Structures are given as structure tokens and as C-alpha cells.
């Protein structure tokens, strides 16, 4: 999936996959909680779904602002 024209593509691809997976996992938890009208569903929404999504978004944003030189080091 890496693009030879983009030396940092491997780093970004890994981070995008990780972030996307966490975000989708969070969305699945949030979706499940929306179908359950119970105080625990709100806790699951915020505490599990929200946390997974927040970590995923954070990984994505950090990857975006990571300087190209550091990306090569990590890749």
C-alpha cells in the first residue's frame, strides 16, 4: 500500500489503519449503545466508544503533524 513516490507513505498508512480501526471500533460500540436505553449504555458510549474514538482521532492528528523527518525514522 506504500507509494514509492511518497517516502512517508508507509508511516502514514500504518497510522491511518490504526486510527481508522480504533475509530470504527469506537463507532461500533457507540452504535450498539444507541440501541439500548439504559444508564449503562451511556457509560459504554462515553467510556468505551468515546475513548476508542478519541485515541483513534489523536493518533490520526499526531500523524498529520509529525514532521517528515520523524516519519522516516518511525517507518
Amino acid at each position, binding site marked *: 500500500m506504500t507509494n514509492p513516490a511518497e517516502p512517508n507513505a508507509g508511516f502514514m498508512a500504518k497510522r491511518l489503519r490504526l486510527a481508522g480501526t480504533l475509530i470504527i471500533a469506537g463507532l461500533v460500540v*457507540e452504535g450498539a449503545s444507541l440501541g439500548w436505553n439504559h444508564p449503562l449504555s451511556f457509560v459504554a458510549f462515553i467510556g468505551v466508544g468515546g475513548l476508542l474514538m478519541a485515541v483513534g482521532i489523536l493518533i490520526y492528528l499526531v500523524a498529520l503533524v509529525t514532521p517528515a523527518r520523524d516519519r522516516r525514522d518511525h517507518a
Partner: protein
Amino acid sequence: MPTVAVFAVLVITVLIAGLVIARPAITVAREGKALAFLGLFIFPVVTAFLGVDNHVERSKETSFCLSCHVMGPYGKSLYVDDPAYVPASHFQNHRVPPNQACYTCHTDYTLYTGSIKAKIRGLHHIYAQYIGTVHQPIQLYHPFNNRECLHCHLGARNFEQGTTHSAIMDDIKSNQLSCVTSGCHDMIHNVSHLDQVKMWSPKP
């Protein structure tokens, strides 16, 4: 926002995020970068806000309040067949929306409105219900505020022009004289006596 609409936004978010996972190389192009930003940042944040709003709205439902075991008797008290029971008569005669019966009279309660402290109390209730100990009998944090009655009754003709209320209106409005503990409307949930009263069965 309706749950269906929240689900629709959620599904769109999953599709975009799934596309980015399956084809991360698309983010090399400008359009791909924009799509990834939408799917991994904008849409998840929007979904989270819509979801919280949906959860808060649903937490106003009577069934939500009664989903905790400790609230069972209070739900049962809404079916007492005695007009002197203030919550029961309001619930049965639709003076409050039946599907938001608890919330209508307890609008300042925990997750609904109010301060961060009130939200933390709501989380404490969940902790007490599932891990800790529920103190019996449960009690309100503050004496019942006349404001909860007045937000419907204030301005109503039969309330404003009734001789009983008009004589003490200033004390009612200033909360000096409680509607529910003054001896006027003091038959509230009264859950300790539910086994001694006749219950109303709504026709299906």
C-alpha cells in the same frame, strides 16, 4: 436528533474510515487527504456529539429512569388508583407526558440539565446501582422546588384565580411555602404504602 439519523451519520463515518483503512494510498492525493480528514476527524466528532445529544434526550424517558431496580416502586406509584397521589394523577391524566413523567417533575436531576456536579451525581448513581450500595429510602438532594410545579401551573386560570392559591401566591412563588410538604399536596410517591392501595390498570 432521531436515533435513525444518528445511525445514518455513524454508518457514513464507518464507510469512509473503512475506505481509508482498506486503501490508505488514496491519501496521497489531495482529495484523499480531505476524505481521510472527514472520515477520521470531522465525522467521528459529529457522530459523538449527535450520540451524546441522543443519549441525553433518551435519558429523559420514563423507561430509562425505571430501568434501575431501585426506581421500580416509584414507577409503580404512578399507577395508584387515588387522585390524591399527585404523581399518579398527573401521569394517568397526562398532565405530564407519560413517556417523560419523571423528567417533567425532576428537571434538575443529574444527567438532564444543571451543573457538572449534577452529571457526576448521575454517574455516582450508576456506581451505587451496580457496584456500591443504594441507601434506602432514596431521597432528593434538595427539597422539592415549587419551580417544578409552577413551570406548568403558573398562569393557568384555575391556579391563578383559585381562592386557595391566590391567598398564598407570594409564598408559593418565593418557595417559602412548599407545594408538596405544606399539607396541601403532600401525597407524593409514598412508596412504603403501595401494598395497601388499589392500583390502576390502563386498558391495552
